[in-house]
C-alpha cells in the first residue's frame, strides 16, 4: 500500500481504523543470505538498500528490543555534513543527499527539515576555525556561509548578541542544507520499506552467539534459536564491542554516554539548529514545539544509559546563556544513549578477520545524521564483500597502521575530544 493524501483522507473518514500494519512480525526462517544484527536506523537502512539496490531478497534484521528503541530514538535528530576532513565530508555529504530524497523514496514522511545548521563563534580563534571549516567544505563542493554578527542576529533574534553576554557571539558558520528529521519516522520508514521488499524484521530476538566454522561465519544463535546465514553484519553502535566479543574480536571502541533533554512544548521560537564552536550545546525546536538540547558526553565509559545531573546543568546553563528566553522553560525529560566512541572520532565500516562477518559501528555521537549513507554503504559492503569508495577510509585496522581520521584533532582518548 502506498501512503498518499487521498489515502489519508479516506482512512480518516473511516476513523483511522482500517490502516494495514506497516510491517510483518514473522517467525525466523532457518537460514538467510544476510543477517543484520541490530534493528536501529542503520540496520534497517542497510536491509532496505541491500534489497532495493543489490536485489538481495533473503534478509533478516535481528533486534534485541524493538526497532528504533536504541540510539535511533535517543539522539537530538540533527542532520548536517559540515565537516573538515575529506573522508568525513564525503561520507556525511553522501548521507545528506540521501536525506534530501528520503521521504519520497520510502513513501514515508521522515519530516526532514533543512532549516539550517548554525555553528556560533565566540572568539577570534573560533571564527578562524569556522572560516577554515567553511573553506574546507567549499573546496569539497559543500556550500557553507560565514556569517557576521548582524547576520546571525537577523537569523536568530533570540540569541544574546550583546557584548555583555556570558558567551559573546562574534559570528557563525551556517550550512543551510542541514537541519533535523523525525528520528522515529526514520526507523519506521526504513522498516516498512524493507519489509515491503521481503526483509524479515525479527524484534525481541537477542543474538547470543555468532556461529563459526573454520574461521567463517555460518549463522547466529538467538533467543529464538539458531539462524543460519551466509553473511552477518554487526550494526549495534553502543554495544559493538559486546557483540563483536561473541566472535572473539576486540574493537578500537569504548562505550560512552551521551545525554539529551527536551523542554515543555512552546510556540515556534527557533527555526534553526544552533550549535557552538566552543560550547558543547545543541539547541533546536522540534515540530511538537519542544526545545531539544544536547550536551557533552559524560566522559567516562559506561553502558548504563543513565547520565549525571551535572551534565544536564551544564547544557542548560550554556543554552540559557545563548538564548536567555529559554530560562522560563521547564524541562520535561532527559535521557541517555550508549555511544560507540572510536579512538579517532570516525566510524568503522569494514570486514572483520572472521570471513563473512562485517562491522558497522564507532559512530561516536554523530550516527543519526549518517543513517541513510551508513545503510547504503554497508549494504554495498555486505553485498559485494568490498567497500564502496566513500566508505573505504573507515577501516578497522586504521589505528594500528596510523591512518586515523581525527576530525577533532584530539587524539585517541574519547573523553578529550
Amino acid at each position, binding site marked *: 500500500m502506498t501512503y498518499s493524501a487521498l489515502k489519508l483522507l479516506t482512512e480518516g473518514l473511516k476513523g483511522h481504523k482500517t490502516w494495514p500494519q506497516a510491517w510483518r512480525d514473522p517467525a525466523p526462517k532457518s537460514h538467510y543470505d544476510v543477517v543484520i544484527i541490530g534493528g536501529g536506523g542503520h540496520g534497517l537502512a542497510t536491509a532496505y538498500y541491500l534489497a532495493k539496490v543489490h536485489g538481495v531478497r533473503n534478509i533478516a534484521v535481528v533486534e534485541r528490543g524493538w526497532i528504533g528503541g536504541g540510539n535511533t530514538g535517543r539522539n537530538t535528530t540533527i542532520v548536517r555534513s559540515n565537516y573538515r576532513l575529506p573522508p568525513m565530508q564525503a561520507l556525511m555529504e553522501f548521507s545528506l543527499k540521501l536525506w534530501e530524497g528520503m521521504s519520497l523514496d520510502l513513501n514515508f514522511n521522515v519530516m526532514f527539515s533543512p532549516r539550517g545548521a548554525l555553528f556560533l563563534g565566540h572568539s577570534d580563534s573560533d571564527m578562524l576555525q569556522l572560516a577554515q571549516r567553511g573553506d574546507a567544505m567549499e573546496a569539497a563542493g559543500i556550500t557553507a556561509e560565514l556569517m557576521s554578527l548582524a547576520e546571525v542576529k537577523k537569523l536568530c533574534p533570540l540569541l544574546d548578541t550583546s557584548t555583555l553576554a556570558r558567551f559573546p557571539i562574534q559570528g557563525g558558520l551556517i550550512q543551510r542544507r542541514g537541519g533535523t528529521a523525525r528520528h522515529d519516522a526514520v526507523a519506521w520508514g526504513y522498516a516498512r520499506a524493507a519489509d515491503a521488499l521481503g526483509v524479515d524484521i525479527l524484534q525481541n530476538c537477542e543474538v547470543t552467539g555468532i556461529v563459526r566454522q573454520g574461521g567463517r561465519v555460518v549463522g547466529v544463535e538467538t533467543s529464538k534459536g539458531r539462524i543460519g546465514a551466509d553473511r552477518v553484519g554487526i550494526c549495534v553502535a553502543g554495544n559493538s564491542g559486546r557483540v563483536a566479543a561473541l566472535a572473539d574480536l*576486540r574493537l578500537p*571502541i569504548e*562505550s560512552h554516554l551521551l545525554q539529551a533533554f527536551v523542554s515543555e512544548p512552546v510556540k515556534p521560537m527557533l527555526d534553526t539548529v544552533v550549535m557552538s564552536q566552543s560550547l558543547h550545546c545543541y539547541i533546536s525546536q522540534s515540530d511538537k514545539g519542544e526545545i531539544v538540547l544536547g550536551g557533552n558526553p559524560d566522559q*567516562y565509559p559506561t*553502558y*548504563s544509559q543513565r547520565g*549525571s*545531573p*551535572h551534565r544536564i546543568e551544564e547544557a542548560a546553563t550554556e543554552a540559557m546563556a545563548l538564548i536567555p528566553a529559554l530560562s522560563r522553560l521547564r524541562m520535561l525529560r532527559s535521557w541517555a544513549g550508549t555511544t560507540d566512541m572510536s579512538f579517532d572520532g570516525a566510524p568503522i565500516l569494514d570486514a572483520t578477520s572472521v570471513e563473512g562477518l562485517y562491522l558497522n559501528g564507532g559512530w561516536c555521537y554523530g550516527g543519526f545524521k549518517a543513517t541513510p549513507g551508513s545503510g547504503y554503504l554497508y549494504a554495498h559492503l555486505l553485498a559485494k564483500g568490498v567497500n564502496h569508495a566513500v566508505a573505504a577510509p573507515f577501516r578497522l585496522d586504521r589505528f594500528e597502521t596510523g591512518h586515523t581520521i581525527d576530525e577533532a584533532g584530539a587524539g585517541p582518548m574519547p*573523553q578529550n575530544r
Partner: protein
Amino acid sequence: MMLITCPHCGPRALDEFVFDRPVEAITAPDADTQTLVAQLYKRTNARGPSRELWRHSLGCRSWMTLVRDTATHQICDVEPVGGAR
C-alpha cells in the same frame, strides 16, 4: 551522580574527578608496537567491573585507581597511585 571516595579527601562528587583510562591502557615507555596497539586499541571495553585510573583534578589532584561497574556505576576498591602517605 557517582560518589567517589578519594583516598585523601574522602567521599566527593563525580564532577570533581576526571576519568583517565582503563588500567589496561596504561602503557610502558619501552613497550613494543604490538603491545601498544593491543593496550590502546584492542581493549576489553567491559560491561561490568573495570579497573580504571582516575584523578581528583578539582580536589587534591592526586591519582587513584578504582574498580567501577560500567553498567551499575558501583565503585569499590579505590587505591591511591604510588601508595598511601
